[in-house]
């Protein structure tokens, strides 16, 4: 079953452990700007939304890449960049609608989420489980169950009353 990096902003506490862990794992340094995931915040309203590559089915980064350096990993289905082919034109950076592709300010190489080869570090560090690496069927099942919970409680009450 294909897994996705699922985000639940309602559970995010804004702690940025995901950014920090991502940067240390992938860049061997603590530099949130070099992380592949970023928590976007509206601090005055208490809204936190982690933003990361959605591993699109029709990746715009792939479409615009003149070097055909954007590929799909056969195991994880992550959209990955072949550094050997990349010429650093940054068209992918410009066209990604999620701001999910970055440029390392030191090496100038393109950085993007590769799902850590199937074991995303950000997920391991997310205590409130706002980030989950999960297949879509299970994810939808859980969401349906959570949404239907209130209805089920109402029904239970009705049945007991009757």
């Amino acid at each position: 079953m294909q897994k996705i990096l699922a985000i639940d902003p309602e559970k995010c506490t804004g702690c940025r452990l995901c950014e920090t862990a991502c940067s240390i794992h992938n860049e061997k340094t603590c530099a949130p700007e070099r992380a592949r995931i970023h928590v976007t915040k509206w601090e005055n309203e208490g809204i936190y939304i982690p933003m990361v590559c959605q591993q699109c089915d029709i990746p715009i980064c792939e479409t615009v890449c003149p070097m055909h350096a954007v590929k799909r990993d056969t195991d994880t289905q992550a959209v990955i960049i072949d550094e050997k082919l990349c010429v650093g034109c940054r068209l992918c950076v410009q066209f990604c609608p999620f701001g999910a592709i970055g440029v390392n300010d030191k090496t100038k190489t393109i950085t993007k989420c590769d799902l850590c080869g199937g074991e995303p570090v950000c997920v391991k560090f997310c205590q409130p489980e706002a980030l989950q690496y999960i297949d879509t069927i299970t994810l939808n099942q859980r969401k349906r169950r959570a949404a239907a919970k209130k209805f089920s409680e109402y029904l239970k009450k009705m049945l007991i009353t009757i």
Partner: protein
Amino acid sequence: MVWNRKIAFINLSTGKVSQKLVSKTMRTLYLGGRGLNMHMLYTLLKPKTDPLGHENVLFVGAGLLGGIPCLGSGRCDIAAKSPLTGAVGDSNIGGFFAPELRFAGFDHLAITGKADKPVYLLIKNGEVEIKDASHLWGEDTFETQTVIKRDEDDQNIKSLVIGVAGENLVRFANVRTGMKNSAGRTGMGCVMGSKNLKAIAARGTVPLDFAYPDELLEYCKQMNNMITSTRWAKAQSRWGTMIIYSNTNTTGLIRTRNFQLNRLEEGEDLEPENIDRYSIGTSGCYGCAVHCRHRYVLREGPYAPLYGEGPEYTSLGAFGTMVDCKKMETILVANHLVNKYGVDTLETGGLIAWAMELYEKGILNDKMTDGLKLQWGDEEAVYEMIRKIAYRDGFGNTLADGFRGAIAKIGNGSEYYAIQIKGMSNLHSDERPTPSFALGIATSTRGADHLRSRPAIDLYGLPEDLLKEIYGGSVATDYNSYDGKSRMVWWQELLYAITDSIGTCKFQTVFCAVHAPKWKEFSKLIQLATGMKLSKAQLMDIGERIYTVERLFNLREGFSRKDDSLPERYFKEPTPIGLPAARNKKIDRKKFNKMLDEYYELHGWDNNGIPTMETLKKLHLDKEPSNLT
């Protein structure tokens, strides 16, 4: 690497900025954060410096481990000579500022002088700019941050700011960042105000390198698991520090009506579970897996709509039990007001509670309070007093000088009712049944304060062998006992000095959780992050050095053994209510003094609380400018 981190010296009078590397010696002796701040405070300030004068220095320091992905490593330490107490001024703040300061290229700032007009500092990738803040003067702490982000066109800027209380030199004005975080104690916001410094904004992309990044990452994961598996952290993740109320109010360890009662009767609405009515979720500081603060919304009532964060257990007492207000909503509104104006929640609540008792006793009257009836449980009077203090309006001006100034002005026996030590208000905790807590507030270098040493696990009745294992000596299980409690306080003082210096959260060490990261774990984190090998014994020595430097600073300012005491009421009035272990308890003066003697001995200080030459030598402090005569 840790060895290339910098400190910026900023003179606001001249506009001159210089930079220096934090030396290897200083790192090894003091780590960072509070440790380095205390060293600089002691060595760079002349004795008897005017806290509000241009010679006072405001130190801002990120911890040695600031930025690592565990244990809430975003703590920032702010220090100066305190305008509230005249002693060590030092306050620790969470949120996201400290890591951003490090990303901006600095670990420490030392700000001296006084700007001739309002300014703010913009610190970006190794550069410090002093910018005009005329348009920010008069703005509250939330709006100030919003405007800076807008002006600099960068939503990721993190700022330390003051509100109107800091501008008006309220002696317990705080420094704030984000919606929630405050460096509340000892009036660091007042020092910023005295320098015409409205804010310090940081933003940067300088990476933090570690000695062993992969191993560090793995160990940080273990640390997060270690703390989140404790009962304390689980409950705190759900309801924040307010969970302490469940135990303290049930037992009878909570100051009520200033100091008249030790439990709030009919205080059910203040139970932490009731925050669920207003909460839209919790929120965490940088690198924190516990996320103890609530994001709350008031949708109804005269103060709606209102979004705020917190409140802490402290505010439950400050605007609940101490002033006899029994509604959660009062706490949420008052918490928002003190945050907005930028004034310490605890000092403000403590002073208002004291004024209410004086009003009840007739020491204060309507004429003196500008006609405001300071009656127990009147939340509107509380809100109005908060405003009056922040703006130094009428009677607020009297309280804005803190206990010392207010006692001098009011006189008439008012001092007896003041629950303060060294000029600083105590927490809303009642320490009469708990000698360990009582000793801790008496000896704290920054005035009545629980965050220098509180051995909260003393309340758990832990077996003696476990206590011996933790504290390295005999400690009585019973929290009413005086036996071994000096050891507990001493040990916790050293541990918290280290926590504040590596920049992690006190709630994620031995505060309320026994099996939380401590010496061994800190030692390993430091080694993996920086390569520095420091044993438990060496870390304890560093803690001892930091605490002793604070002691030396206070001695130099004229504090002595007589200031390491408790308000008279602790010795005279027994607790009237509560469970048997908390009822009819007062502090025994003789036993307290014995505890104090033992405590000094553990630190290597003499009977007057003065560090012996042997201790100074051991800690490499014998060559420091002690200025002791």
